[in-house]
């Protein structure tokens, strides 16, 4: 496997990318840290509930939450639990499932290659039995119940329910207590066969490692199998939102909200320019030095939890403002009004220059953490985006290009407000 060096002259730093003959993408970012980090991920998340099976060519519809269930069960192999194996090398292992990916990861300060061996091993050896699948139901049911009591989770979930008509991003990542009852070992094997093909996966390694040693172990451990390209079916999603307001009562002391502005996304993913420009726009519009923040603060409508984010993935994208507030509806009204004014007035030059510095420094500072670096490279690999180019783009963006992007986003007619509020 050959590696290509990706360099940043500005940071005097570099990382390496390569593609193994199995199709597995490999990213290696050596650093002078004490710990190392590895993440092996696949493009299979909670939104992939409908697809054309690679063997039968028939349409398959699987229960909600199956990607997450598979993540839990993959740790168990015929020869034992991989968590236990990691514990013996001293590594901290974990995994997560999001809307669009599942990732398996570990960090360690010693025995890196033993741990990498375990990671590459258990992810290539699925082993699901009736007994082991059954055992997990109680555990996952309690995980779901834990999130059901978490207002910050619910407020996000409800926002997606309000914004999206059909796109499976509406579905809870872990599914629900009823849907997971329907999951069988065979379904897990089917999902594994379709989505855990190395063509669909990336391995990212950061930290105190030698790239040649990493290549050696990959060559030894990775089995080349026939390439499979999963065909995912997404329903047609209208550009309009479903509801402009959604509210749920909870036993809590202070209401939380999320206000999302839906954006049209076609068949292709958003370009990284669009994502970087969105970050710059949000920094100008809603950061602590903005007019909006000041207005909300002076009216005592937000607290330090106020935040904003650009949220995107296959077939969905939205700009989201969130926080706690005594009067979330008023916050929603003000943001919607201010968005219109902001779009009319345009972006001021000095605000823009400050935002560029802040966003550029943000992107660079992410590299301080091995974990964040590996996670970012993994997410960037999904669309073949390069991290250093993103960083450079933030530093050198042109005002007129960013203003063009502003016209595409933040449409109040396509915004939904999700609120969780106290019972009394």
């Amino acid at each position, binding site marked *: 496997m050959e590696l290509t060096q990706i360099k940043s002259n500005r*940071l005097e730093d570099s990382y390496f990318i390569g593609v193994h003959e199995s199709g597995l993408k490999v990213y290696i970012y050596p650093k002078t*840290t*004490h*710990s190392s980090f590895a993440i092996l991920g696949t493009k299979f998340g909670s939104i992939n509930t409908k697809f054309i099976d690679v063997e039968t060519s028939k349409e398959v519809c699987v229960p909600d939450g199956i990607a997450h269930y598979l993540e839990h069960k993959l740790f168990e192999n015929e020869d034992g*639990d991989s*968590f*236990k194996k*990691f*514990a*013996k*090398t*001293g590594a*901290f*292992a974990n995994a997560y499932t999001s809307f669009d990916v599942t990732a398996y990861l570990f*960090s360690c*300060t*010693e025995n890196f290659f033993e741990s990498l061996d375990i990671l590459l091993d258990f992810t290539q050896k699925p082993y699901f039995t009736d007994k082991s699948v059954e*055992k*997990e*139901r*109680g*555990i996952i049911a*309690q995980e779901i*119940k*834990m999130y059901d*009591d*978490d*207002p*910050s989770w619910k407020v996000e979930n409800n926002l997606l329910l309000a914004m999206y008509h059909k796109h499976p991003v509406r579905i809870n990542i872990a599914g629900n207590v009823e849907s997971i009852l329907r999951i069988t070992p065979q379904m897990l094997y089917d999902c594994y066969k379709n989505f855990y093909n190395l063509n669909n996966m990336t391995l990212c390694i950061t930290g105190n490692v030698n790239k040649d040693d990493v290549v050696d172990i990959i060559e030894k451990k990775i089995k080349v199998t026939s390439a499979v390209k999963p065909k995912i079916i997404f329903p047609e999603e209208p550009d309009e939102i479903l509801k402009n307001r959604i509210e749920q009562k909870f*036993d*809590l*002391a*202070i209401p*939380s909200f999320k206000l999302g502005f839906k954006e049209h996304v076609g068949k292709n993913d958003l370009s990284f320019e669009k994502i970087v420009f969105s970050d710059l726009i949000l*920094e100008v519009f809603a*950061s*602590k*030095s903005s007019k909006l*923040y*000041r207005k909300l*603060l002076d009216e*005592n409508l937000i*607290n*330090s*939890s106020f935040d904003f984010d650009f949220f995107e993935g296959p077939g969905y994208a939205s700009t989201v403002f969130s926080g*706690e507030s005594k009067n979330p509806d008023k916050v929603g009204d003000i943001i919607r009004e201010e968005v219109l004014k902001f779009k009319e007035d345009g972006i001021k030059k000095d605000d823009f220059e*400050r935002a560029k*510095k*802040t*966003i*550029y*420094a*943000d992107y*660079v*500072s992410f*590299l*301080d*953490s*091995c974990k964040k670096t590996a996670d970012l490279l993994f997410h960037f690999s999904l669309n073949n985006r390069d991290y250093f180019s993103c960083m450079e783009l933030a530093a050198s963006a042109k005002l007129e290009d960013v203003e063009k992007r502003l016209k595409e986003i933040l449409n109040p007619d396509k915004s939904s407000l999700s609120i969780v509020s106290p*019972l009394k």
Partner: protein
Amino acid sequence: MSSVVTSFICEGVNFNYIKQSSFKSERVSVSMFVPLEKQNASKNSVLFFLLSKSCLKYPDFTSFNKKLSNLYGMVLSSDVGKLGEVQVLTLQADFFDSRYALNNESISQEASELLCETLFKPKFSSKEVFWDDDFAQEKDQLIQLIDSEYNDKKHYSLIRCFEIMCENEKFSIGRFGSREDVLAVEKSDIIDSWNSLLSKARIEINMTGNSDPKNVLNLFKNNFKNIKRENIYKCETKITKKAKEVKYFQEKQEINQAKLVMGFRTKFAFPDNFFATIVMNTVFGATSNSKLFLNVREKMSLCYYCSSYYEKNKGIMVVQSGIKRENIDKTKEEVLKQFEKMKNGEFTEEDINTAKLNLKGSLFSIYDSINRINDFFLVQSLQEKKYSPETFFLELKKVNKSQIIGAAKVVTLDTIYTLVPES
């Protein structure tokens, strides 16, 4: 590995520099240590949150934040925490390493100056400046912060267990004090707190990063020149070594999942004889190879999480789990059964080694995070004997099986707190 270089500034004030050139950002923080007292906790908290929002030089919130964002999105923040029965108030500046600045700006100098402006020249240090609105806003913000702790049920149930368990101890005081205490804070309290903290609190200034610390050290030296430092507060934590009888407490809320929190007294707390308790807690419930994880979760499928945590500054161990209401007793019994096994020595040398390996990984990776470096050394600020991650691990490594059994045998169950669904 890096080490800490400590310089003396004045009575009870140290400047600690940890050189780390691998980061692309830097931090300078000022932490003050004071006894946790009901009458002062809220006043100190409001003061610290107020300090991070403006200063005399930049009295307006927006202009202050414009200055910060111009310094590559520098973050000036406050944090209030508890180290046992000591309140720790921190004001810190996180900023971008000048090596990567786009126009060769020197960020570290300006950032440290701004940090000093907020601490030594706040808005309220001048009689001519109006700060009533800032004050009212900050009180309200802090009340919201206290309220939001109720929203997170796992966190809420842990705090409630501590409150009930340590009812007549200082440890039951919240890090921000209470809602009522915050409401009662007056403007004059802020000025009094500021004056007494600057002259009487134990203060540790920490700098982590690549920049030369000389200018930053001088900056603080100059600022402290005009402050009379005397009668430095004594910070101590009282340890209750043994529980008297088990306290049971149940609360109801409109929730889906029941929370079980079991509080134990461990007899030992930092810095005395606590290494065996750390290893014991790790074998018992702190990892995915622990007795609690393997039995309560994996074998019995009762929960998604069941883990133990050793609050070493107070000598308390807590077990937390989220379960079905009808499984509370079953879970409780299993936790106690697993703990009996710890007392009886029913664990292997391999279990001990795995736990130590886990602790080693956790300690040796500290240098890879500015946050964790700071926390590690901050916790030790009040102690005579200082450990590096390496020397800390050497102590853990020495712990043997009989010491672990010994540490388990002196543990007593104090409180069982449950938060259950209404219906």
